């Protein structure tokens, strides 16, 4: 039983949820970019805000799902291992995704 402020499963779940949000958003944007064709300005306006809202919403949903699964399924020892690698996981996930989102606006 974990004590308050010492819950490795919860912190692993939050870490994985945060990284899933970043990965999911990036994957969705890159997919949209690969299948996109140039649009006239009026079409950009008409469809304007929907893709972004969808991307964020789906990313949050994916993050919550992964977090919940991680919290429910990860054994404490595995969770500790995940959290211990937290800084590296964040670096290796967020950096390439952020670069991708600047290169592919």
């Amino acid at each position, binding site marked *: 039983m974990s004590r308050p402020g010492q819950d*490795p499963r*919860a*912190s692993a779940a939050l870490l994985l949820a945060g990284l899933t949000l970043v990965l999911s958003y990036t994957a969705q944007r890159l997919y949209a970019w690969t299948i996109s064709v140039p649009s006239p300005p009026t079409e950009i306006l008409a469809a304007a805000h929907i893709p972004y809202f969808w991307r964020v919403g789906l990313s949050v949903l994916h993050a919550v799902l992964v977090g919940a699964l991680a919290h429910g399924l990860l054994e404490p020892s595995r969770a500790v291992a995940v*959290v*211990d690698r937290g800084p590296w996981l964040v670096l290796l996930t967020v950096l390439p995704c*952020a670069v991708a989102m600047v290169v592919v606006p």
Partner: protein
Amino acid sequence: MSPGQLFALVERLHGHLAVLGLAVLLHPVITLRTRPGLALWTRRTADLGALLLLVPFGLGWWIYPAYRAEPKLRLYALGDPAWLWFESKEHLAAFTVGLAVAGALTLHVDGRTSRGRRAAWAMLLAAWICGAITAVLGVLVAARATPAW
């Protein structure tokens, strides 16, 4: 108040709150590395920073359709690359808020352990860096979209 003035008001609130959130978030980013243990104010500033970034994200969400209809369309029609900078700003803003919230919550659930604090620090630092780039892009886009004259 005209729609344009309302947009400008909310846009400025959005930008100012976001920069304030970044400034507040810098506190836990620094103290999690320089102080042993988890101080109460480190946790509070992480929470406050995440909240101060969440609110302007919501404000940005609210004015997003108006931005798309007016400033962005004009930038796109003029061939100004600033509209592309805004796209990157959107993406990084989502990363910033997600990582800031996750990092702040991690301090609550596992902040008593060094591993939890390290993981939270990594997420908060990543959020801060993404947020700083977002802020720079936002200022540049705002300057191009609404020049003084």
